[in-house]
């Protein structure tokens, strides 16, 4: 039975079948990889590019970054302070979900893109205080139309910069590479 199957595989038709199966598997894998590299859909297509170009500071919308662990996302009240007075808010389809959210009072469920797993404790404040810029870790957000995460935020990425930042300072190196600094 198995031998007959292998004999059949060696025929031209069998070879083509093997080729098709291989191609199908390969494209499924490639598509799977591709989707992991895509930015997720957001409830509102919020364009950073437009807003940062107006000169709005990152910290106006993400004020937690200089104060604590989490940068925070703005609530619709902050958006509405401007958009309430902007003509386009009434007409733009892109802004309809914002209007709905304000009217219904329901919060907007943004999909996180810059995220580390639960077992990692990250702290924005320490980094901003040490003089790091948002761009060092998030890429050039001011050019993004929909939030994306150009870096792979894995442990090697954190540690590379930590080792580099510590330089010759032995005490700092110990602190910044200690498992207990990030995992607890």
């Amino acid at each position: 039975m198995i031998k007959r199957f292998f004999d059949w595989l060696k025929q031209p038709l069998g070879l083509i079948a093997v080729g098709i199966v291989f191609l199908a598997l390969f494209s499924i894998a490639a598509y799977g990889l591709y989707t992991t590299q895509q930015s997720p859909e957001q409830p509102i297509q919020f364009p950073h590019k437009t807003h940062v170009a107006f000169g709005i500071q990152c910290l106006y919308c993400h004020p937690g970054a200089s104060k604590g662990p989490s940068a925070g996302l703005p609530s619709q009240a902050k958006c509405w302070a401007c958009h309430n007075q902007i003509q386009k808010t009434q007409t733009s389809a892109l802004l309809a979900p914002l209007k709905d959210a304000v009217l219904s009072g329901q919060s907007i469920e943004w999909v996180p893109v810059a995220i580390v797993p639960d077992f990692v404790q990250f702290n924005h404040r320490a980094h901003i205080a040490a003089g790091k810029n948002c761009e060092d870790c998030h890429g050039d957000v001011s050019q993004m139309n929909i939030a994306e995460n150009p870096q792979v935020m894995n442990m090697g990425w954190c540690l590379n910069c930590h080792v580099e930042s510590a330089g010759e300072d032995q005490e700092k190196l110990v602190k910044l590479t200690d498992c207990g600094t990030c995992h607890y």
Partner: protein
Amino acid sequence: MATLNDLKISEVKLSEGEGGKWGMVIDQDICTGCQACVAACAMENNISFVGEEDSGYGRSMHWIRIERFWEGEYPEVKMTPNQPMLCQQCGSAPCEPVCPAFATVHSQAEKLNLQVYNRCVGTRYCANNCPYQVRSFNWRDYKRPEPLANQLNPDVTVRRRGVMEKCTFCIQRIHKAQDQAKAEGREVMDGEFTTACAQACPANAITFGRTDDPRSLVSQLAKRRGHGAKHLEELGTLPNVTYFKGG
């Protein structure tokens, strides 16, 4: 040739001891055994409720427990003072060298025993080698019925099944206080923060702080009371918790 038997215990350097940084003083004379520390610890550190059945198998997961012992023969039994038992954050910890995955390591920065949950593969060697029996294992993914999930502490990892865990001396509070102090450009002050168990103790039987600073309250208490005991010190574990009783 000298064999291991020729060496006296005192000559055998089992592993390099670490000086302590954070330490605790527990006064057993004023501990009433009320279990407030046990509850506070469970809330602070997202400890699972294992339920009646698993608890019966000895799988309860408290990071701190109140031990009670009895002395004498019936009817002359006398209870010894309550003894809160938690990870002693040994300077030379028996749990560390036996971990095949290097998941329990010594923090050089904070001088604590760390349990890196994501590194842990659940061999349970560390728990078997702990003379204080203070490590607990997640035998299951225990359920948190709906409203309970809302009280999880975001600063502490929620552990999964198959992972060992133990008292961390509330390292999340240590980091928070250090971060706060750094933001304000100063050093962490003694008594500025404390662990959940010490905070909850109505009798103030637990004191937490820097043992490497002679001016801190823990160091002062240890000096004033003088005759504190460290449990199983003779094993060379260099524990960082000091117990007082009968004084």
